[in-house]
């Protein structure tokens, strides 16, 4: 379960963002909707522990992110959170397989080849296992990024604009893939986007921006 309450973030005295309270049940999915600059990415980064919480609470997998140390947040992020971005951000010096193995390595978890094979097979990337990142198409790279995010069976998958750069066909394909893998893993899926095509697929949504303002 993911719960956000009385959360606010201040970049500088002139800009303070307030976020609405919401909860998402384990295994469910939600859209974070809002225009550019509304604070969607900030909220996602707060939930991933990439930004320290200044005010309010984020609870994920029974942990209150406002109350644990930075080292514990790193560990929490590696084990419980899978992050997906608009761009794939794969490490181009490594092969597909080694990019995936980075996930358990960096999270100090056992590196299991079986798990890599399983995830790659599920995402239709089996034959790309030994490929270099530069040899992948845009769509394949995005799927590898998804594979990497779910490899550690995270409790929460946080996706930041995963479909904005894609055409309708690929947009639908990627969002369905995300829904499928998160259901199989019993992960909570949170998608931050301004892409209105997703509204028909994920009904539950949280509007960001109503509560933000100058303060």
């Amino acid at each position, binding site marked *: 379960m993911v719960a956000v309450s009385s959360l606010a973030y201040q970049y500088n005295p002139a800009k303070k963002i307030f976020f609405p309270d919401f909860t998402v049940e384990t295994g469910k999915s939600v859209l974070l909707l809002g225009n550019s600059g509304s604070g969607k990415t900030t909220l996602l980064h707060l939930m991933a522990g990439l930004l320290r919480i200044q005010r309010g609470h984020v609870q994920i997998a029974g942990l209150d992110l406002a109350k644990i140390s930075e080292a514990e947040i790193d560990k929490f992020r590696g084990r419980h959170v899978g992050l997906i971005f608009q761009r794939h951000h794969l490490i181009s010096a490594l092969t597909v397989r080694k990019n995936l193995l980075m996930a358990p*390595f960096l999270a100090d978890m056992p590196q299991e080849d079986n798990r890599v094979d399983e995830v790659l097979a599920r995402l239709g990337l089996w034959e790309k296992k030994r490929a270099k990142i530069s040899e992948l198409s845009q769509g394949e790279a995005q799927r590898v990024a998804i594979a990497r995010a779910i490899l550690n069976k995270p409790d929460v998958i946080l996706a930041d604009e995963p479909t904005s750069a894609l055409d309708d066909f690929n947009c639908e394909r990627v969002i369905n893939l995300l829904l499928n893998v998160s259901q199989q893993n019993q992960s909570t899926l949170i998608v931050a986007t301004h892409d209105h095509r997703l509204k028909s697929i994920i009904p539950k949504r949280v509007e960001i921006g109503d509560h933000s303002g100058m303060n």
Partner: protein
Amino acid sequence: MNLWLLVWHYLSSRPLNTALNIFLLGLGIAVVTLLILVNHQLQEKVTSNSRGIDLVVGAKGSPMQLILCNIFHIDFPTGNISLRDAERIAKNRLVKKAIPMALGDSYGGYRIVGTTPAYAALYDASIAEGSASSEPMAVTLGYAAARGLALSPGSTFASDHGLTQSGHAHDEHKFKVTAVLARTNTVLDNLILTSVESIWKVHDMETADLGNVQDGVASPLVPSVAAGDSTREITSLLIQYRSAMGAIQMPRWVNGQSRLQAASPAFETARLFSIVGAGVSVLRGFAFILIFISALSIFIALYNSLKERKYDLAIMRSMGASRSKIFFSVLLEGTALSFSGALLGLVLAHLALFLVPLFLDEAARSGISAWIFLPEEGIVLAAGVLLGIVCAALPAVQAYRTDISRVLSSAD
């Protein structure tokens, strides 16, 4: 995956840059190591070659030439001194041992030395093959000379006049090899030893009374001739003092005599090293500039690759990597570069010492070995690695401090 593998993939993903950095550092380290190795071995050679010789007495000229010629056998003789003068020096009460040297001929580039068995004894030489003979025209070969000339006991040869191979041959007098010495790792290995009488015989100085001391006393230096002989000459006299008092009185006494000069091996070699030292300093300075440039190059490479890799680092953090893991990965990359460079440098230095003697005879004669490893090389290696750590420190700190949230949101 592990940190080593990650670093390896990063380094091998830009092979040219990595190779350049390793090679640049390797070159600098190689020059420094080469200087250390050569300097150490030369010092050792100088000490072992002049062991037991306190003073060289010869004809007037350059004292350094006297030492280079009579101890290291690389320069030309200063001239001759009369046997009678030499005897007077040898009989001085401060002299414990006096060894006559008659130089000037060679064979196949190896110098022939007319002397007494005491000369080989200075270097604790033992006979490997055959048996030494004091008969005129019998020679004992040094280890390297026997190898280089492909001679063994029983072979005969005619010497060349002079110290170069272009001198005319003394065809009328053949030398006969009777013994070969075991290796001593001193200058003795490159010499052809014979008696002083043989040298005289070759140069037609033989007179009827050679080997026939009838009246009076035998010469203390060359027993087969009478003491006080006024016609015969030798090149020099190697002297060992009886006591430290000799070092104070002998040189002044010898130099006071108009036809003679005395030179101290210790003093002259120290002078030689201080002259050569200037060249060594220039080389060393050059090596340090090379190392400095390579350090700068490693720093710039890490710094630039960090810019390209900003997202990689942020994404690694987003996957749970701690700040310190990122810090160590960058540090490890610099260390891996500098360790490889330093190791390459050591290998290059030894390779150079191995290869140069194959193409240069002079280098081969110097007896410098590629297979001597010094503890200083460990220090060079450690210093090289430390350099890498220092170069990587700033980029690593920067990686440590990366604001992942900002990097990731600026990318989208």
